[in-house]
């Protein structure tokens, strides 16, 4: 009996243990390591941009807006959840690693992370306007942070960029052996100088966004721009480009560009906007491949011709073109008399060089066009170039083209040239003429597009010759210097080229459109009355539903720098 009792007690003792608070299957918080959190932040940043693109690329007609036929129903607060959540979780990760990083003197990790933090915050301020900043990221101490004015966020971020530059000034990128996935060498060893260049460039971008104001926080905008351009430590070479470089592995892990995953696996993927393909391939009215980037940007799975299209795979073909599409406001910037706003395909159903995307606000059902809709090409997603093949056919399952080895462009040297062109034209700051910056921007963009990865042999027929590039540049500069051209027209041309060069990034075109109102001939929604434009994106449902301090959601709220009161559509 005693023995029995003893045995039973032994077996029951473990059932009386009442202190089991920690999950044995997860790492304890004190096991965190800033080096690996830095990896998380670097890897998640392109996801943040991609999720911002889901709104910004659609509202700026790079990708097709198909979620609704008017602005009222095209987006909902829930559509911002992913971007908003990704952004703040990254900011929280950066915050969480700082004490240990400071303790270990990981200054490179600290500085580079701070710059990424600034990029996230300025992007969120640009896209959403006022956002939680000063009270954010406090966990249980404050679950409902108040929203800060976007001007205050901008001013704070501007200061933080200066702090980051200070931290990086004497940073040792080998301390702790962090991997620098943006500017690292073959072994992943980071480059602090490039991060400093990025910080300066981001400052210039913020100043340019705010250029219609006089001050940014305590800084005089003109003076700051003058200094930055004078110091000339800005992104001006491909090596300095701020872009995430994807890999090629399909599973475990899937390291490919997310749009490649979407468009090259199954079912056709997201539609590219007809307007953007029109702007690249048609609007200048110079025939196919006049823009040397055309084949690199877009890939036709099959030739789209009149005989291969019908009501089943191209329903808009048999529907009447909305009459407001004939309005001259939406016609070509270069040849308004001959090239009207496109409808249904990128070439207005002429089937001369048809890319098949979708019109703005076409929310109709999905026809059986998986194998004919146009997908993104080799740039920037690492897709296909060359002869048509069905890339999302069941038998190709994501093994075509450059296997998703693309980039997520954030700030490229071409963007900086366009920004400098805009600054020169509007504020007259800088030594180089706006025309030369415009030209440099175009050349940098063409160069990036055609050399950003080792090009496959399929690309050889499309690699631009000097003559072709020259013809394109001459054409654009010819328009720029055209008779009786106004600065407004010149600015529109700069923004138009910036828009084309920004393919794969919707954030910069969205900022540019609200700042300048260009491109002014954006394809209108199929419904004539689209409703008010998105002056900012809806706040995320995740915030609005859970934070009583969230302001009410509407499309008229504006970023502080959006002061021009432009008619946007």
């Amino acid at each position, binding site marked *: *009996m005693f023995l029995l009792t003893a045995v*039973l007690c032994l077996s*029951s003792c*473990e*059932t*009386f*243990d*009442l*202190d*089991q608070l*920690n*999950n*044995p*299957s*997860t*790492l*304890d*918080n004190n*096991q*965190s*390591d800033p080096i*690996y*959190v830095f*990896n*998380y932040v670097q*890897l998640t940043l392109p996801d943040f941009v991609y999720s911002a693109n889901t709104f910004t690329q659609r509202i700026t007609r790079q990708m097709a807006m198909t979620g609704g*036929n008017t602005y009222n*129903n095209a987006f909902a607060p*829930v559509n911002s959840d992913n971007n*908003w*959540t990704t952004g*703040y979780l990254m900011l929280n990760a950066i915050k969480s690693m700082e004490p240990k990083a400071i303790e270990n003197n990981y200054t490179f990790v600290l500085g580079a992370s701070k710059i990424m933090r600034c990029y996230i915050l300025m992007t969120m301020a640009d896209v959403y306007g006022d956002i939680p900043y000063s009270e954010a*990221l*406090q*966990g*249980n101490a404050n*679950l409902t*942070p108040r929203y800060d004015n976007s001007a205050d966020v901008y001013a704070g971020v501007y200061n933080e960029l200066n702090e980051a530059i200070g931290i990086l000034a004497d940073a040792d990128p080998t301390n702790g052996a962090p*991997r620098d996935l943006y500017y*690292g060498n073959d072994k*992943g060893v980071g480059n602090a100088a490039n991060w400093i260049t990025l910080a300066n460039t981001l400052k210039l971008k913020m100043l340019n966004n705010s250029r219609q104001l006089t001050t940014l926080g305590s800084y005089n905008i003109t003076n700051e721009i003058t200094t930055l351009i004078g110091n000339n430590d800005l992104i001006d070479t491909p090596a300095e480009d701020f872009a995430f470089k994807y*890999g*090629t592995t399909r*599973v475990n*892990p899937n*390291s490919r560009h997310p749009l490649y995953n979407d468009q090259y696996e*199954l079912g056709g993927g997201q539609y590219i906007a007809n307007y953007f393909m029109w702007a690249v391939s048609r609007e200048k009215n110079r025939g196919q491949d006049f823009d040397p980037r055309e084949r690199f940007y877009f890939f036709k799975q099959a030739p789209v011709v009149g005989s291969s299209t019908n*009501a*089943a795979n191209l329903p808009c073909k048999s529907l009447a073109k909305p009459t407001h599409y004939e309005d001259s406001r939406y016609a070509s910037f270069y040849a308004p008399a001959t090239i009207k706003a496109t409808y249904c395909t990128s070439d207005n159903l002429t089937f001369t060089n048809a890319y098949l995307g979708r019109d703005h606000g076409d929310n109709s059902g999905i026809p*059986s066009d998986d194998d004919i809709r146009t997908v993104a090409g080799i740039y920037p997603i690492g897709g296909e170039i060359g002869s048509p093949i069905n890339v999302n*056919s*069941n*038998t190709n*399952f994501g093994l075509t083209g450059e296997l998703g*080895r693309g980039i997520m462009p954030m700030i490229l040297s071409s963007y900086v040239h366009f920004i400098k062109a805009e600054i020169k034209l509007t504020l007259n700051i800088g030594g180089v003429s706006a025309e030369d910056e415009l030209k440099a921007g175009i050349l940098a963009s063409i160069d990036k597009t055609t050399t950003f990865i080792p090009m496959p042999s399929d690309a050889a027929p499309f690699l631009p010759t000097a003559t072709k590039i020259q013809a394109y540049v001459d054409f654009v500069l010819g328009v720029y210097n055209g008779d009786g051209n106004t600065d407004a027209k010149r600015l529109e041309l700069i923004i138009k080229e910036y828009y084309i060069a920004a393919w794969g990034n919707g954030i910069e075109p969205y900022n540019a459109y609200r700042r300048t109102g260009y491109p002014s001939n954006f394809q209108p929604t199929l419904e004539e009355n689209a409703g008010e434009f998105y002056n900012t994106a809806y706040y995320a449902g*995740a915030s609005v*539903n*859970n*934070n*009583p301090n969230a302001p009410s959601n509407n499309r008229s709220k504006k970023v502080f720098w959006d002061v021009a009161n432009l008619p946007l559509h």
Partner: protein
Amino acid sequence: MRSKFKWIFTLLLAFSMQFSFAQEKTVTGTITEGGLPMPTVNVVNKNTKASTQSDFDGKYSIKAKTGDVLVFSFVGYTDTNVTVGASSVINPVLKTDAQVLGEVVVTGQGIKKEKKALGYAVTTIKAEEFASKPSTDVVRALTGKAPGVNIQQTSGLSGSGTNIIIRGYSSITGSNQPLFVVDGVPFNSDTNSDGNFLEGATNASSRFLDLDPNNIESISILKGLSATTLYGSAGSKGVVLVTTKSGNTKEINKKMEVSVSQSLYMTEISDLPDFQNSYGVGNELEYRTTFGNWGPSFNTRGEGGIGFDGSVVHPYAYYGAGVFPEYVGQTVQWQAYPNNIKPFFSTGTVNTTSVNISGRGDNTSYNLNVGNTDDKGFIENNQYKRLNLSTGGSTKLSNGFTFSTVMNYVRTDKSAPLTGYGYGSGAVTPSIFSTILYTPRSFDLFGLPYEDPKTHESVYYRRDITNPRWLLKNASDDESVRRFYGNFSALYDINSWSNVSYRLALDNYTQRKKYYINKGGYQTPLGYLRTTVNENTVFDHTFSYNFNKELDKKGNWALDGTVGVNSRMEGYNYTALESFTQFVYGFQEHQNYEDHLGYSENSNFNIVGVYASTTLAFRKYAYLNLQARKDYFSSLLKENRSLFYPSASLSFVPTDAFTVLKNNKYLNYAKLRVGYGSSAGFPNPYQTNIGLFQQTSAFTPVVGETVNIISPNSQLGNPILKPELYKEVEFGLEAKLFNNRLGIDLSLYDKRSNDLIINADLAPESGFSAQTQNISEISNKGIELGLSLGIIKSDTDGFQWNLSGTFTKNRNIVESLAPGVEQLGIAGFTNLGNFAVPGRPYGVILGGSILRDGNGNYVVGTDGNYVEDPELKEIGDPNADWKSTIINEISYKNITFGFQFEYQKGGDIYSNTANSLLSRGVVVDGIDRENTYILPGVNPNGNINAIQISATQYGFNNSGFFIDEQSVYDATNLRLREISLSYSLPKKFIEKTPFGKMSISIVGQNLWYKAFNFPTHLNFDPEVMSLGVGNGQGFDYLTGPTSKRYGFNINLTF
């Protein structure tokens, strides 16, 4: 036979101690009732207060002097007093207490009580209701039989999960499934699914499927909190107490009995829709390879893509000469194939054999049970096999110790096709039912190949659907369980009125799952294999002191009760391995795949409870029961980890209390009861401290090594998390009227759940996106009514007609969520799913709806179709208004005919079966396809809509495909749950055979149903749950139709 098994118990119960007692005169005898010996009868010497109990043969022995009075008592029987005379042998015969009709029920912690002493509702269901039935799932067999208990299958597939909810949903994001207690042991009844509903979670079986219905003696359902307090937090959603034959050997009172039952049932899909055979695949009367059947009529010649000879291009010609050279350039006739879907379904067989041996020795009783079930479903590759081995026994030693033990081993193996979420244009993950029902009427599914003859890839009339026949052959979701559960208990009688007992219980199972699909399908073209192992362990110790004493000599006051300590450990251990990119077709081992991903996790928690319960009885007509328990939970901070919760109930039997009511012709029995109960709910473990997220191989750059990452978790720990508290008030009335012809059992309850734990979304700007919090409140109020009516009564052999019925109505309201939170998703998608909305019933369906103008008119857009409201709106309430069951039992001599009807009033369901069949135009729908239609509504300017749309647009766009609201139907339905005819052979026929009893039954289940508010030709049975077992309800995502079953069983006893 007896000696054959005796050694087992000698082995098992090898603990004995001998005491000897001095004796003067020993009175002995055998206590019987109706000629059978009665074990465990209390024998008390009124004079000396000495007491004992009869053994398994009804024998007792007690010290007494001549003139002493011995009282023989047993619950449900009249006390028998005998004065000791000269003889030292007394053989009393006990009589049932006809007045009391003292039904004995099993209550909390296995305590048996007279039903009249209970201040709360308990429904007891006898073996006849679920043994030898077509349903091999014991819970499913109980559907409709207990008021207040809502049981719903997830689909008609063999081995699929079953949802059981008692008195409504009382937790928001926690589990609402009741606790199963088998022979006093908490029994894990989880539904362990590896995927979510998108992947077909409904396919996973619920672990109470491991119980063999044929080895169950009875099931008691404790519904209210005043009944379940002693079970602690685990019992807060109700308790299903299962007593197996092996676990109840004490009441065996035959030397030896062998019973054999054999049944054979057929299972079929409950019904198919009424397909139309006039129009084929296409759009706008044009032949196209669309999903839909809005193409030309089969009489069309020379237009709409149909040749003048009535031919169309061969559907496989597009594969080209590389795959099917024989079809290149070929045509097929434009015609309907009326039976192209039926052969996809087959008739399965359900074969069950059960052998039970029970008996008793001198002081020992035993039971052995072997059950074998082979359940083949209505579709190929759906099979559920189960082997149950069970043994139990108990022995009473003369020294006051009683030892008992039960051991069970279960082996189950299940296979099923993949049943992922189908959305009407295919499925996100492979899914067998997602497309089959809308196979074009013009496609000869069974006359054409389903695979590429060389590569084995799926072939179909369009590439973006996996051929359903291919999927059936090339994919499977298999599950196997090896389970051991049992208990060991020891009881020591301290004296005649008290004892101490200790029980150790163990429940341990390992569930292995294997999910695979060969390469060559559409969704996973490269193949996929996932295997998981889930080991689940429950260790449960209970030590208790129990007493039962009359407080005064007259027997007016009696007190019984129990005080105990219970400690329970629950743990699980999960590992998963996924493999991608199959190498050789058709071979399912991980080494045949190129890439692998592994995952594992462990979890463990303990709950220690101290409890007490006491009942004070006055003259056997008034009973006051007080209970309380305090629980300590291992995964909350010390200051919040315990909760004390009391309960009290009162039972009063006026028919015993007042002389005027005694022997009343009209009111034979009445009992009033009122109870208050409370209970605790604990969160999932590890919610106060959240660890880090880490991932290896998060990214592989083109140059350089693979990258590993660490980040804070998106979930935020909540240090102030505390248990949730449930409170319930219950009132009841039980009565027997008109010579016991009419029986009424009515309960009313009001249950409130406070500090409900939910996994709340956080504003991400806090740095985190979710946290477990105590913030919400739910109430459930309801009525449960059980009725029995003897319509025709006669002597035993004559014509009898008994009717019984249940009525259940539960009103559930989400009283509050976190401040400012207007809705919380519970199940489904974030834009179409079940939500908790303050002021609304739990789980209302929110989704897309048609935009209304200020006057409530539908708004029609410029294209002539409805405009969708951009806001998420409530489009349905899945909770039924009420449910009712009517069971008829008509018998004459040895023939019994029974049938059970069930009616559900209200309760909405979003049906993808409905919207896909209608929008694909495959069923008879009354739409004139040559005509045009104008949708009722107004255009955005407020004028009456006048835009004509084609029949295709009318049918395709307005069947719920685009606007969720149009897919929501009221699920009111009536069904013939069961119909049976049984015959037991008269005694005189079997007198000369070795059989003691022999009976045969023919049974049919779900043979007829009618969902009144669905389009008639769909023949749709809304009794499905595509979100699986859990808190989601009211969704049909084409994950599996219901089945009907019919066949016979034979029972033999010898």
